[in-house]
């Protein structure tokens, strides 16, 4: 039996659903896509790279295929002293964020400045390169391809760097380990200003994926945590066992992100550590066991770098 008199109903249903999707997807999409990137959005893209969730280039979310953020105080080419500068190093083969590959998403003025002054069209993923975030005289932020404009090569910049942050890989850890199930990355527009800092603006997200706002806050918001607490030592202890620094914390331990060996290459024995810790927790010993310093390529280091970089 065919639909017969229900044909009208089915057509009406199609019309309703289409109009609904037009209003709730197409129109907001147009509006949001027209927003210009802020400086923060450019920095985030260059820090986090292509995609932090599941993707072809890092299917098991191990923090691969990510740029390295470095701070420089001298020019890597000439060795001359410069003001402290953040640079974003894409080793050859590292995939570029959306703003570099589809740069219309940056917004008109930002795109123009990045393409003109910043010469970003000359960058390719095969060669890699070094990028900076700059602000033009008319306050337009733009991306500068420093390998072309200043001759800063990947190797030279990594060598000259005072500090390297694996914050891009760390965001992958943040997503894989489910940190965002409890820690939001979205100070709310109403009451969060004083405790958790400035809420983000519309243009702060161009090119970022996923945005991981989080919805179920069971722990402090982390969007500006690096400004509140910039102690690597505190964070190291906190990730290893949060109850070392905050006895009432309900955060899980992330000691397994340390891997097998610490920074000096000594093996890490989590069971033995736990035994000593439990003795301490019961009051049988005065001091808690020492927390190993994470190896420089460990997942723990990546995650700590990500959190410290949340300014």
């Amino acid at each position, binding site marked *: 039996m065919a639909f017969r008199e229900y044909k009208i109903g089915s057509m009406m249903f199609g019309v309703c659903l289409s109009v609904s999707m037009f209003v*709730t997807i197409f129109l907001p999409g147009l509006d949001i896509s027209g927003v210009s990137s802020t400086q923060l959005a450019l920095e985030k893209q260059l820090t986090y790279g292509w995609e932090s969730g599941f993707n072809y280039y890092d299917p098991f979310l191990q923090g691969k295929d990510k740029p390295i953020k470095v701070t420089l105080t001298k020019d890597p080419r000439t060795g001359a002293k410069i003001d402290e500068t953040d640079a974003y190093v894409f080793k050859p083969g590292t995939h570029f964020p959306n703003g570099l590959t589809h740069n219309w998403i940056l917004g008109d003025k930002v795109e123009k400045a990045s393409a003109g002054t910043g010469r970003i069209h000359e960058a390719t993923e095969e060669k890699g390169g070094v990028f900076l975030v700059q602000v033009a005289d008319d306050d337009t932020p733009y991306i500068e391809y420093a390998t072309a404009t200043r001759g800063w090569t990947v190797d030279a910049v990594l060598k000259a760097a005072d500090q390297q942050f694996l914050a891009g890989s760390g965001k992958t850890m943040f997503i894989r380990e*489910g940190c965002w199930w409890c820690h939001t990355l979205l100070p709310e527009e109403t009451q969060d200003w004083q*405790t958790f800092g400035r809420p983000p603006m519309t243009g702060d*997200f161009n090119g970022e994926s996923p*945005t991981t706002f989080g*919805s179920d*806050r069971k722990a402090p918001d982390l969007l500006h945590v690096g400004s509140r607490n910039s102690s690597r030592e505190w964070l190291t202890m906190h990730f290893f066992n949060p109850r070392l620094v905050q006895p*009432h914390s309900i955060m899980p*331990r992330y000691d397994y992100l340390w891997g097998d060996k610490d920074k000096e290459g000594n093996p890490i024995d989590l069971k033995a550590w736990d035994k000593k810790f439990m003795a301490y927790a019961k009051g049988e010993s005065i001091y808690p066991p020492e927390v190993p310093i994470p190896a420089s390529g460990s997942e723990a280091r990546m995650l700590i770098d990500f959190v410290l970089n949340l300014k």
Partner: protein
Amino acid sequence: MLKYLFAKEDDIPQGSAGLFFAVSAICWFIIGTGLGSFNAAKLAFPDWYHGIYALQFGHMRQVHVHAVIFGWIAMAFAASMMYITPTLGNTKLWSEKLGVWNCLLYNIGLCLALALLWSGLTSGREYSDHIWPVDLYIAFVMFIPWGVNVWMTILNRRTQGIYTTNWFFAACVFMTIIVFLVGNLPEFFHLTGLNEAYMTWWFAHNILGLLITPVAAAITYYIVPKITGNPLYSHRVGHLHFWSIVVFYSTPAAHHLMSSPLPEWLKSFASVEGVLILVPAVAYVCNILLTMQGKWSMFVSNIEIKFTITGVLLAIPLNMQGGFQQTRAINWYIHGTGWIVAHAHLALLGFSTFAEAAGVYYGIQVLLRRKLYSASLANFHFWMLLIGFSLYWTSMTIAGLIQGAAKIYEVPYVDVVIAEHPYMIVRWLGGTMVFFGNIIWLYNMVMTARAGSIVPVGRQPVEVAYTR
């Protein structure tokens, strides 16, 4: 069941697909609530299970959510559709074989999807956590064959009209497929930024609003008239419910992001549409409760009605919360707190689960033609669910209000954690009660299959005595 995979269509007993789905749903319900109880224990006592790194909270939380949504709730829906749709069309299910295959591939796919989530492979987007190959599997292997079976059964019906329930069934499966394919566009095409954030919640809102609540309502539209013998109070109000769901429920996605920097017009629009959700909600609740006229004794005496009407009554606070908590006046206080967690459980564990449990209780009896084994065990299950849920909802609502107050008074966050601790324990107890109740339910259903009294042809289970 597996012997029917390669049988001829005519050799497969009617109802096989429905039964397969129903039993799977109960098993997933046990798994899902077990995981929930485990996660809740972690929030109350974080060092309790230390050392078992495979069971990290950050990996298990989303497994719980997807086990209950796609394991329990969606499969209970599939089970209900596989037997209710043909009954309402006075016909057979279009293809039992497709249904059995559908259920098998659904179970396999869900196991795979949850294993991937468990191991940390995620898109990092709430509710659309699954990686995009899994999203495509869910749409094309799990939902489209299910939809085809429902749509073809309705097309091949032997009645002239289409009853409200079937309108909902056909439309909701269709909309779910659309939501899956459109809501995951950010993953398929690497859309980024606020578009990605907004589409994440467009998906989350619509998977709840266009699948879970309306299908649960559709099941009650069938169960209540069928078991009480009263005709539906008003078919026309049922239509109002259906059309206002399509129009109002598909539009307020942005109200999940009221405190984010989305365009203001979008938030205001979503908020107004969000209040209009009360139109289908009030229409629905009135329609069902008025259908009960003269048969209220069955609310006590009949287990399926007890479940159904409890669900409908829970839909009243659910929709009152849902309609108003997303307005700017209230949202700033409770956004991102345990209040929302309580509200989500009121929708899924309260309203929806009670309606589905009735659908599955009734479906298994009808499909097996056997009366439920034990009324006492069923009542025990009911009270474990209701008390467990109430403990959960109350404790999380209080915890949410504490968090909300702490937002204003700038309390150091750890003091909120300390203040919430007792409520985290109560939440865990409540969840654990639901889990144990479900184990009893599975036992009762297995015993129904083995030892339930036979329901003669032409009789309703309600007319037959319990075995025990």
